[in-house]
């Protein structure tokens, strides 16, 4: 059951990611990314992280991607033009990415036995456990991220203003 669910949702992740690359209109890429994020939420649920799964849906798929979709709809640039691109980036970047993928995959698959299994009967990390660690051991990083979000809001509002506002 876990195997079937993993294969289905990992398939959705990969299909969405490949679709993001192949589509020309940015709205289609945005929708593919939403599919990837929702499938990742299901994978988090399979790994026992229930609060993170629903936070992924609420924050990422339901707020950040809505922001992306709004910007695509408002700016309305249309289908991507085929300009020359950067030959160096493609010549070095693609092989480098493939090499990194190869190295990571080899290391991980070599260590497959020692890394253990994920199964449906493993314990779920409840919200209580998560919040105990978040608000006791990691209180300072939590407060700092709140300040970070505040700065981001101020920055976004300041940047998106039209010129001529006094």
């Amino acid at each position, binding site marked *: 059951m876990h195997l079937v669910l993993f294969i289905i949702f*990992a398939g959705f992740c990969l299909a969405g990611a490949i679709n993001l690359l192949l589509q020309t209109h940015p709205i289609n890429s945005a929708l593919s990314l939403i599919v990837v994020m929702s499938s990742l939420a299901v994978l988090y649920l399979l790994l026992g992280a229930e609060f993170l799964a629903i936070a992924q849906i609420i*924050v990422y798929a339901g707020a950040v991607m809505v922001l992306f979709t709004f910007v695509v709809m408002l*700016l309305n640039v249309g289908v991507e033009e085929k300009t020359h691109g950067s030959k160096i980036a493609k010549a070095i970047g693609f092989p480098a990415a493939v090499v990194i993928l190869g190295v*990571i995959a080899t290391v*991980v698959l070599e260590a497959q036995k020692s890394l253990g299994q994920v199964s449906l009967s493993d314990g779920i990390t409840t919200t209580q456990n998560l919040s105990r660690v978040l608000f006791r051991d990691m209180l300072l990083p939590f407060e700092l991220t709140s300040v970070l979000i505040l700065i981001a809001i101020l920055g976004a509002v300041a940047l998106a203003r039209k010129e001529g506002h006094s």
Partner: protein
Amino acid sequence: MWNDVPSSWYLVLSALLFTLGVFGFLIKRNLITVFMSIELMLNAVNLSFVTFAHEWHAVKGQIFVFFVMVVAAAEAAVGLAIIIAIFRARNTLNVDQIDLMKL
């Protein structure tokens, strides 16, 4: 057998998603799509974090995912505001036409 998936498969999926994000960053010519590839890379890393949190029964892994999500949301907000400002100045979102500071 039907109920167990090796953790390494999750990690390979995470590496694959990251690589696809890098490819998107290199190929795509629309600024918003490049930004979406960055979000894809962040999500791939989140999957790695959650897998290892499950592996070692460390809740701190999941807390770190929380922080990555928060930082990514903040970055998306500011980044999209910058993109809107660029569009107002240059009237195009094609990466090849915005790559010089001089108009």
